């Protein structure tokens, strides 16, 4: 398309997506978006036809998680738009770059309660970083460019473009425009209210560097911002330069290698004991791209109460939202960390020495020895231990395997037991806690990297929410692998009822007989397996790993009584962390 070439809104929209480098659109057509689907036939962009619009949204998220590029989904108006509300909210809370295009009834019909009309921009206002209702076809190239700019810069997030049908329909005069493609400068100039700060303030950087060298019990609290900013290398350099241990939040698993001697793993409600206690006892919390989420802090007043706080985040609103930092730094995590490394180096070169942290390191290794992750081994005749399944899967897949999960016990166990040694190998729903996330997210990830192995670890409750997308995976030849840790319960809810509701199990039992997951998988064109005994676990995983022509589903029948430990009860202080019952004697010795 040449500058000033006459075109129409639908063709311009697809051309704009091509120019933004979009490789794949996850979507499902319908009445209002029909004119945009027509030019897709000629487009270089791959379209993955989903079975439910929620799947399209989560696939776009999965794609974005593993590539760092914005995921794109496209659906029609009304019910299709409301079906992507969940993925949009999910992407908003986890800062996932995403561009969602929704159809809308013709502009003149807006507000008349037309067929399949809903107020999409109104509904999604509070769960998108920004959204647009296009009122003029001539705005389309500009709006698409702005949407990708906003979705991918600053704190990333979802941007929605709502497109009335008349504006994209070539038979309607309102769809005509002359093609243009705004320059980067024009995009920036057109958004006077959008100027993300990326470079940390030099004075704050210096202050932070001095605090880091002076701290006797420092710890790095690394959040999802590390991955969003592609700062994993920089983080490693900072940790190794200073010898400071790194705690990686649920959103930052893989941002620092689990096998690194300085890695303490996940903090929070189901974090490991050492990570949780390191926060409680530290004198300097070096917070990088994290947001003091309640699942990390537990009771906020008692969180890291002995610590001074350095807090670097690209979103100024995070600084002081939950915890007032001593040194706030607004900036991109990678740039801030690189600046910190330079500042620390120059202090060291000028003769400054780092405080003695050897006692702290001993304390940490003491915690690690006393309270490693633990589960009781399988008892013959009983159901499988989910942790055993995970360990076997972990040890029999390539280290760059992409692991996706849903939400609940299986998610926590995966985060705990997997060894994430590469960034962008872990895809999950953190902030919103969206059950049903893993199957479509895995499909999105596999669409991005067809040559990588992609395993979704799912619960049986989660799987039943979005399993139909395996039909998409089969038809589109996106061979993901699904491990269902099937305990026939909504496991995490069951755990809370057991621990906090006097074992009164209200509406958490699903079924031990239906669905038949093997048959269900096969009916969707997947290979299906059921595993009941420990001996079958490894051979079945090996079989699954060899299947590359279709998706695989393994139904692992696991022990419903198994609970996730450690655990900090909701609203309690992290210092009251409950470890596995077999370790209880060791508590309180520090």
């Amino acid at each position: 398309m040449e500058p000033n070439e006459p075109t129409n809104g639908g063709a311009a929209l697809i051309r704009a997506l091509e120019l933004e480098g979009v490789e794949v659109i996850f979507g499902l057509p319908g009445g209002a978006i029909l004119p945009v689907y027509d030019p897709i036939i000629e487009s270089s962009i791959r379209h993955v036809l989903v079975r439910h619009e929620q799947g399209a949204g989560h696939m776009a998220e999965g794609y974005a998680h593993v590539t760092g590029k914005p995921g794109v989904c496209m659906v029609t108006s009304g019910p299709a738009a409301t079906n992507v509300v969940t993925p949009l909210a999910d992407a908003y809370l986890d800062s996932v770059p995403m561009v969602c295009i929704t159809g809308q009834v013709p502009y003149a019909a807006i507000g008349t309660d037309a067929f399949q009309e809903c107020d999409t921009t109104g509904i999604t206002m509070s769960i998108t970083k920004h959204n647009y209702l296009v009122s003029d076809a001539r705005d389309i190239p500009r709006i698409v460019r702005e949407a990708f700019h906003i979705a991918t810069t600053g704190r990333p997030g979802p941007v929605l473009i709502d497109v009335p049908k008349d504006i994209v329909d070539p038979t309607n005069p309102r769809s005509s425009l002359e093609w243009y493609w705004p320059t980067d400068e024009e995009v920036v100039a057109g958004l006077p209210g959008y100027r993300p700060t990326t470079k940390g303030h030099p004075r704050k950087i210096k202050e932070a560097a001095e605090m880091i060298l002076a701290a006797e019990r420092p710890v790095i609290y690394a959040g999802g911002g590390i991955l969003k900013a592609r700062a994993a290398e920089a983080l490693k350099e900072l940790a190794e330069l200073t010898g400071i241990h790194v705690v990686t939040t649920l959103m930052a698993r893989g941002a620092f290698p689990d096998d690194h001697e300085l890695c303490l793993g996940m903090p929070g409600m189901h974090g490991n004991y050492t990570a949780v206690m390191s926060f409680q006892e530290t004198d300097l919390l070096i917070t990088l791209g994290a947001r003091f989420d309640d699942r990390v802090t537990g009771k906020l007043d008692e969180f890291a109460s002995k610590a001074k706080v350095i807090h670097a985040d690209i979103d100024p609103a995070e600084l002081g939202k939950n915890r007032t930092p001593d040194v706030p730094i607004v900036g991109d995590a990678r740039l801030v960390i690189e600046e910190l490394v330079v500042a620390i180096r120059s202090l060291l070169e000028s003769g400054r020495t780092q405080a003695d942290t050897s006692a702290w390191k001993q304390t940490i290794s003491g915690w690690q020895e006393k309270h490693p992750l633990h589960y009781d081994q399988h008892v013959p005749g009983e159901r499988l231990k989910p942790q055993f399944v995970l360990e076997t899967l972990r040890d029999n897949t390539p280290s760059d395997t992409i692991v996706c999960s849903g939400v609940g016990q299986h998610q926590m166990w995966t985060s705990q037991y997997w060894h994430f040694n590469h960034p962008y190998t872990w895809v999950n729903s953190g902030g919103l806690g969206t059950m049903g996330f893993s199957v479509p997210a895995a499909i999105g990830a596999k669409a991005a990297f067809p040559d990588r192995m992609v395993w979704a670890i799912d619960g049986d409750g989660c799987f039943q929410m979005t399993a139909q997308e395996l039909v998409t995976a089969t038809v589109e030849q996106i061979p993901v692998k699904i491990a269902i840790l099937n305990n026939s319960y909504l496991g995490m809810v069951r755990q809370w009822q057991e621990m906090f509701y006097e074992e009164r199990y209200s509406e958490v039992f699903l079924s031990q007989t239906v669905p038949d997951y093997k048959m269900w998988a096969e009916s969707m064109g997947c290979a299906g397996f059921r595993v009941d005994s420990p001996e079958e676990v490894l051979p079945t995983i090996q079989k699954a790993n060899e299947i590359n022509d279709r998706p695989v589903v393994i139904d692992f029948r696991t022990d419903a009584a198994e609970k996730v430990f450690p655990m900090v009860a909701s609203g309690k202080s992290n210092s009251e962390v409950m470890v596995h019952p077999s370790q209880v004697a060791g508590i309180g010795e520090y």
Partner: protein
Amino acid sequence: MPGVTSPSGGHNTNRAVRHHTLVVLVENQPGVLARVAGLFARRGFNIYSLAVAPTDDDERFSRITIVVDVESSPLEQITKQLFKLVNVVKISELDPDDSVERELMIATVKADPSVRSQVIELVDVFKGSVIDVGFDELSIAVNGEPDKLDDVEELLRPYGIVELQRTGRVALPKLERTPPRLKSVQNRAAN
């Protein structure tokens, strides 16, 4: 209007403690007021009053003057969240002590012929005007500082207020020889 009460007496100083004025320059885009109002609702911030109008550059920008209840949530968090809205260009926080504020009040008051002159006199004292006259009612308009309007309201109440509307305040920083304490909270406006 909700009465402003203070444990320490004088309502002028009390208002300063509870309420802050944010002058928010926004792009003149459809839905921008909904974004601002929606943000307050979603984050649990309270709006005390709100006034919206185009600026001198009415093609591009509007100005929203929001009086916020700063006891409900810290002002800093409100401004930071507001500033995340893509259409918000600039936010100025005006300290009530260092700004001039104006508000317009219009009201219909019971005023049968026997007390009509008293009401007119009262309105005159406050440099207001009578904008409509009925058989036993008067409609009046007064503009001024919000506190003054509170006074007018109190003084009119005994006659019987039939209907009363206030616009919500608009504000500008006080002009002084020393720089005014207009705290430009953040300013990313491309000049």
